[in-house]
């Protein structure tokens, strides 16, 4: 047996958290705790990079598989990665250290506890992306609620209690039905091992109900219209690092779940429910883009834009075309980077002015030029300008959509225009215009750590915008295989 690299990825942050737990709690700026957390996550990031390098791109089968008996005859602890999941793991390990660097100013009290929560969260998120057993997946998927609830509730803004409750109960409600479905699958097929389930397949007569049960969970977590309302509340009230984790990684769990479980396990039901997904996605794209246009609060605007972007993702996944699914995965990765960057940019001005209202700002470009340039880059990436990673994703999704359903693709394209509208208008109101608010003149430009974080995010956004091959090569074989599997299943119906 080789070195259990995936388990160490999952466990390392928890060990770091344990270490922090046993160190003495100092009030105020606890640098040691921060360095410990940073060190742990950076090591984790390096391990995941090593994982990517040694990953074999030519096969679609799962790699680095570890399997241990957990509950005799019931659950096996089984983890492994394929081309689809590995990118999400790297996204997770990449974003978390940036979150930890960014907690400088936004978290005033109980820094150590905050870092523990973030590290534990990272463990669970990596676990979600490499679980190859439905129950193991469910365990990680649900367990993430606990640290996130605390992050929003303890360190959030004024309405944090309401948001934390809404977040927790909404997602729990969605997930319990998935648990029913998972146990049912166990009784129908006799296993919860995803790899085996791919081979056995699930009887057609059960597929629709099971698909709906999984859908109820993923739809809440994605979030899809009309169950998206927890997201803006949670985002607005979460501290910057919490928003970043939420937008960049947590939302991707559902998209990943759709690809891995909904498409993989219930191919026929996925076909049946495509119109439903299309409708909800298109509504999400158009409707939430319009809502985003009207927002006064910057974080809320970005939150609604996240819903719209995730609408593209679900649309792309259920085109059931090679381009669509690849586009969705790249869109998720890109959105992970871009939304993280946008929340961080909002965090930067919030730390200085303690206001998230757009009307507070205006004319920032003459005060803090470096900031304005980076903000522009991220705004453009968010609206999908060619040359940024956002473009690759949206373009591929729309290509897939045009192949499958012309009308849906046309409506979704309107969403792209709306996306450009709200992002540019936001940028115009915040950065350009007259400098009316006198307080803004005292603002300082990006300090070293902020500059470092934002550049770290800007580099991959631009790099993958011009050269998406590393991403596409990684996922290509796995996606092709998924499509083939889907087609054979459809043919044998």
């Amino acid at each position: 047996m080789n070195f259990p690299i995936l388990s160490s990825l999952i466990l390392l942050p928890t060990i770091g958290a344990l270490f922090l737990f046993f160190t003495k709690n100092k009030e105020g700026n606890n640098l040691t705790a921060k360095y410990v957390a940073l060190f742990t996550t950076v090591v984790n990031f390096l391990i995941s990079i090593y994982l990517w390098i040694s990953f074999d791109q030519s096969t679609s089968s799962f790699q680095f598989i570890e399997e241990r008996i957990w509950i005799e005859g019931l659950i096996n602890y089984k983890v492994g990665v394929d081309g689809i999941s590995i990118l999400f793991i790297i996204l997770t390990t990449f974003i978390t250290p940036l979150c930890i660097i960014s907690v400088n100013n936004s978290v005033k009290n109980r820094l150590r506890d905050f870092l523990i929560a973030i590290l534990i969260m990272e463990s669970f998120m990596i676990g979600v992306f490499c679980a190859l057993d439905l129950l193991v997946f469910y365990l990680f998927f649900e367990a993430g609620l606990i640290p996130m609830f605390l992050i929003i509730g303890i360190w959030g803004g004024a309405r944090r209690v309401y948001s934390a409750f809404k977040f927790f109960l909404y997602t729990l409600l969605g997930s319990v039905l998935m648990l029913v479905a998972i146990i049912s699958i166990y009784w129908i097929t006799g296993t919860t091992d995803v790899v085996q389930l791919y081979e056995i397949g699930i009887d057609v007569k059960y597929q629709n109900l099971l698909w709906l049960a999984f859908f109820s969970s993923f739809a809440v977590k994605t979030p899809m219209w009309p169950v998206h309302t927890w997201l803006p509340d949670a985002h607005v009230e979460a501290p910057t690092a919490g928003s970043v984790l939420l937008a960049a990684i947590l939302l991707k769990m559902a998209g990943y779940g759709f690809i891995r479980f909904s498409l993989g396990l219930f191919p026929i039901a996925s076909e049946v429910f495509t119109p439903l997904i299309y409708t909800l996605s298109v509504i999400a794209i158009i409707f939430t883009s319009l809502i985003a246009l009207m927002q006064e609060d910057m974080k809320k605007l970005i939150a609604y834009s996240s819903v719209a972007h995730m609408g593209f993702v679900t649309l792309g996944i259920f085109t059931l075309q090679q381009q669509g699914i690849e586009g969705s995965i790249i869109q998720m990765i890109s959105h992970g980077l871009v939304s993280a960057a946008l929340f961080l940019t909002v965090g930067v001005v919030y730390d200085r002015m303690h206001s998230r209202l757009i009307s507070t700002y205006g004319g920032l470009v003459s005060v803090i030029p470096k900031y304005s340039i980076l903000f522009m880059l991220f705004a453009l990436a968010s609206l999908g300008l060619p040359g940024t990673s956002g473009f690759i994703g949206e373009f591929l999704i729309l290509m897939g959509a045009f192949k499958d359903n012309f009308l849906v693709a046309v409506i979704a394209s309107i969403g792209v225009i709306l996306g450009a509208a709200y992002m540019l208008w936001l940028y115009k109101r915040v950065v350009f215009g007259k400098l009316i608010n006198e307080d803004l003149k005292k603002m300082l430009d990006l300090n070293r750590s902020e500059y470092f974080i934002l550049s770290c995010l800007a580099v991959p956004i631009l790099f993958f915008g011009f050269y998406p091959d590393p991403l596409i090569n990684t996922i290509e074989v796995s996606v092709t295989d998924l499509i083939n599997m889907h087609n054979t299943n459809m043919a044998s119906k």
Partner: protein
Amino acid sequence: MENLNLILPEIFISLSIMFLLILGVFKNNSSKITFNLSLFAILITTIITINETFSVTRETLFNESVVIDSMSSLMKIITLIGGFLVLVISSTYLKTFKIYNIEYPILILSSILGMMVMISSNDLIVFYMGLELQSLALYVLATYNRDQLKSSEAGLKYFVLSALSSGLLLYGCSLVYGFSGSTNFDIISNQLNSEEYFLTFGIVFILVGLAFKISAVPFHMWAPDVYEGSPTTVTLFFTILPKIAALTVFIRFLYVPFLNLIDQWQMIIVFLSIASMVFGAVAAIGQTNIKRLIAYSSIGHVGYTLAGLATASNDGIQSSIIYISIYVVMNLALFSCLLMLRRKDQYYEDIDDLSGLSKNHPLLSLSLLLILFSLAGIPPLAGFFAKFYIFKAVLEQSMYFLAIVGLLSTVVAAFYYLRIIKIMYFDKEKDKYDTDHSLWLKLSLTVSTILILLYFIFPSQLIEVVSRINII
């Protein structure tokens, strides 16, 4: 000659009770020594019982009116360990209220004896004897803090309602006896058939009586008042031990004498289960007193246990037993936290008293956080696995409605657990509580919290023990 070794635990505990009574009467200021000797007695009994488990598969005694099998041994061990822990963490609380007397450990011992008789009973009369022994001890325990109005009220309420339910139970037993001609469970099982209408009445009366004892909806009305009024340590005793015994009897009744009448009772159990789960979740939301809240939450937990029983399968029984074992650990932990909320000889039991606990007592509030998430059934804590086994068994029998209602009520229940966490973590802090707790209290909190937290690493052990139980 009967093999009396098999009931050695019961004999030993009876002798200890008598001895302790005599000691208490003849020796002044003997509270402390009585306490320690009772603990010792429970410990010895536990060891005897554990020892017995290895040698016995299924034995009956006294014309088959007492049965010793793997289920009875396991339940007795849980009861004894639970009883030991309740007794050991009680002393500070009792001393504070100046009720640290010899009667307390003796009453607890008698109640445990009654439960052990119940657990081993294979006969209506033996069962009833055990039930009454434990109930009588519990009535007195509920009023134990007799200077307080609420405690007396709790005891009286419990007595009146419990006596009523015992009456119903006896009437049911007499009907069953009338139709089967025997009080022995095995013989009843062979004699009964579902043709007789009045037999259904007998079953219903017995089930109502038992449902009362485990406080399942709609026979739960006594629970919140009694839980709130009784001294906290007695409430802890109420929330765990009688439930274990009553659950065992429930299993025996349903799966030995009434096994052939499954059509008659299955719907009743499903109804009790759904009603308890939903009511327990909804009614707890508005509570302000922690003990009342625990009463409602335990009603909900009883609902989940009954869901396992309703499946009429070995898996279901086993899952219920796993559930009740984990429930015992969680409640022990929860009450240990509650007993730590002491400031200058006064105990606090309102939810608002927890406000901002995390700032002054980070470790205490962290364990309470884990316990509450576990009670809410969030993975990877033990409470999740407990629910998971139940729903696995329920879904095996394709009882989808029961499973979905149960899981949805966990979401509602999560709300009130979250509310406590919110108060602990998000609200403003109050004065500090005392931290000079007894070693046992700290130990029981630490151990039970660690069990809850790390259960997911070794889930197989408990299953292995429980899987030896095959009633059907």
